[in-house]
């Protein structure tokens, strides 16, 4: 079946460095792609989304890139902070939200 997946289960970065979290998807008909952040003991929190007709969208310290040619989505976090430590999920919207498996971001002080 179709799925949204992440390349790496864990990413460890130094505080202040930039982080890049990647995701590969398979459903080219999805309307939106979304990144969620999930901290321990909490539900997923919306970070940023991008429509399928765009290739880049920027937020505060975060940028999402969409490459439809290779069906790849990435989340870039600038100047990573300890508070960014969490599990990050990409999700695609195709009638309903379909989540990938998540990447754990660890920020080293």
């Amino acid at each position, binding site marked *: 079946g179709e799925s*949204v997946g992440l390349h790496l*289960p864990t990413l460890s970065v130094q505080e202040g460095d930039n982080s890049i979290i990647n995701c590969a998807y398979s459903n080219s008909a999805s309307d*939106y792609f*979304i990144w969620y952040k999930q901290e321990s*003991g*909490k*539900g*997923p*929190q*919306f970070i940023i*989304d991008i429509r399928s007709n765009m290739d880049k969208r920027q937020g505060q310290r975060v940028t999402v890139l969409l490459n439809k040619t290779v069906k790849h989505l990435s989340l870039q976090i600038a100047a990573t902070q300890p508070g960014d430590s969490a599990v990050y*999920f990409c*999700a695609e*919207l195709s009638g*309903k*939200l379909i*989540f*990938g*498996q*998540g990447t754990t971001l660890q920020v080293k002080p």
Partner: protein
Amino acid sequence: EAEVAQSPRYKITEKSQAVAFWCDPISGHATLYWYRQILGQGPELLVQFQDESVVDDSQLPKDRFSAERLKGVDSTLKIQPAELGDSAMYLCASRGPGLSYNEQFFGPGTRLTVL
């Protein structure tokens, strides 16, 4: 800030027992979702309500799971009987009118452990 409320936060039960989870969405949110999240994986939609009506329950194991939202506000998800494989986080989310499908607000979840 308005939040989705869920209770209990943690539940431990023995297999073959019945369990129930409660969700109170953000006030005014007509759409309510129940998700199951197995450890290390992303959430998977179990059921979607629009007011009191079920919109999508295609992934709900109906032989043992049931969900209701009788007055179109709060909702209950029940499992009877619970099985070992039901151990997971059960998340509730809601969405308000005029918001797109991706603008869902999640509650803190109920962590279920079946022994």
